[in-house]
């Protein structure tokens, strides 16, 4: 690394240099990176997962289908083409119950169900989370603000092969009579990985 240059400035310059050279050499285009980022802002992101969870809260038969065959249930809904695309080829939902809390982790890297959740947040990729969540999940969750008692079984899913998991959390109290849109608005990416509760606005 060049001396006397801030680490982030250096990386910013180096990645820009790389991108520029790749365009010059005909490997990618000047639009490529922007189009990829745009895809995750508009088409594939946690807003899709939130709609799926909200629908499952309202429609018990859909919930059953979602848990039995996640891709087919998702295919029933109207989403942009690609819900079984990159990092979504084999997705599966697991449900929290009063007796079971699910937490998703990828100890080796950062596997994440892109079509329903978009790109993994920093905390999910942090080696500290990956190291600790698998061995002491309740302690980590407590630091994140989520208390899971020892009487509730914790299932930690370490993503290492084909499946990309997401959590169908329980519908929170105080949301009776809400529409699907209202419900989807409170579902966060963290809650769909089992790392947070949803907060019902007062």
């Amino acid at each position, binding site marked *: 690394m*060049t001396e006397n240059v801030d680490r982030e400035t250096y*990386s*910013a310059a*180096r*990645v*820009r*240099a*790389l*991108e*520029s*050279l*790749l*365009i010059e*050499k*005909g*490997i*990618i*285009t*000047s*639009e*490529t*990176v922007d189009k*990829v*980022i745009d*895809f995750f802002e508009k088409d*594939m992101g946690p807003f899709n997962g939130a709609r799926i969870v909200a629908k499952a809260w309202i429609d018990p038969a859909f919930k059953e289908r979602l848990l039995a065959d996640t891709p087919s249930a998702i295919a029933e809904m109207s989403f942009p083409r*690609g819900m*079984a*695309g*990159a990092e*979504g*080829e*084999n997705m599966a939902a697991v449900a929290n119950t009063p007796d079971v809390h699910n937490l998703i982790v990828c*100890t*080796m*890297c950062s596997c994440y169900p892109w079509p329903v959740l978009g*790109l993994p*947040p*920093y*905390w999910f990729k*942090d*080696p*500290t989370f*990956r*190291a*600790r969540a*698998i*061995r*002491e999940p309740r*302690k980590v969750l407590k*630091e*994140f603000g989520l208390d899971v008692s*020892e009487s509730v*079984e914790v299932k*930690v899913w*370490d*993503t*290492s*092969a084909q*499946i990309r998991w997401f959590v169908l959390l329980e519908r929170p109290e105080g949301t009776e009579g809400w529409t699907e849109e209202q419900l989807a608005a409170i579902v966060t990416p963290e809650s769909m990985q089992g790392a947070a509760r949803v907060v019902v606005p007062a």
Partner: protein
Amino acid sequence: MKLQHYIGGIEGLEPSSFEKKVFVQPWEERIFGIHVAMMGLSNHLEAVESVPTKFSSFWTWGHLRQGAEGMNPFDYFKYRYYEKWLGGISGFFIESGYVTEEELSTKTAAYLANLDAPLQSGGEPAIDEQIIEYLRVGDSPACDVEAQSKFKVGDTVTVRNPPPVDHCKLPGYLRTKKGVVDEVYEGTYNYYFLTGDGVGDPMPIYNVVFDSHDIWEGITEPNTKIYVQIFEGYLEDPE
């Protein structure tokens, strides 16, 4: 052993960050986009044959991971997630002869002097069409090959302990441990390439459940189960 394979379970760490941003520095999204482009233009995808890109390499998650697992393990923990990507991917383009170290250094120096200097512009739109199409279609590891699965639901299995390879799909903490098959996934699955430790060819995958106390005894929490999807090549009958 490779420390990168053994991250799960490491003790003595600080509380975890709960930073919810995907990209903690604006430059990080650029290297992410480049990696996606490389995956979408990888030479193993049939659709790429007719795409007018000068990229002609085989590039997948496996290749990115192989680079990260090949790092000096102490360096691995010094760099942030996308810093490792930037190092690995720029190294790959230099080693493969697409760009020279000198070109990259010269251009880096130019952008250091003026980070807002424009990028080269232009390129064939068909390149971007393929990359977005790759995102929509994916690259499924599911295979048409049939195979008789060796284990069934309820079987106790032992996780093998093969010697370390350049890229491994087996979390280190599971090695030699016993678990119970919870689900046998339908069909067979390959990996992008042969890892050299028993994975890569089409084979069944199992969902195996472990009691966290069977792995970490007294330093874990009560009532905690660990579920991991494991390629058959990493499993054997308990002796």
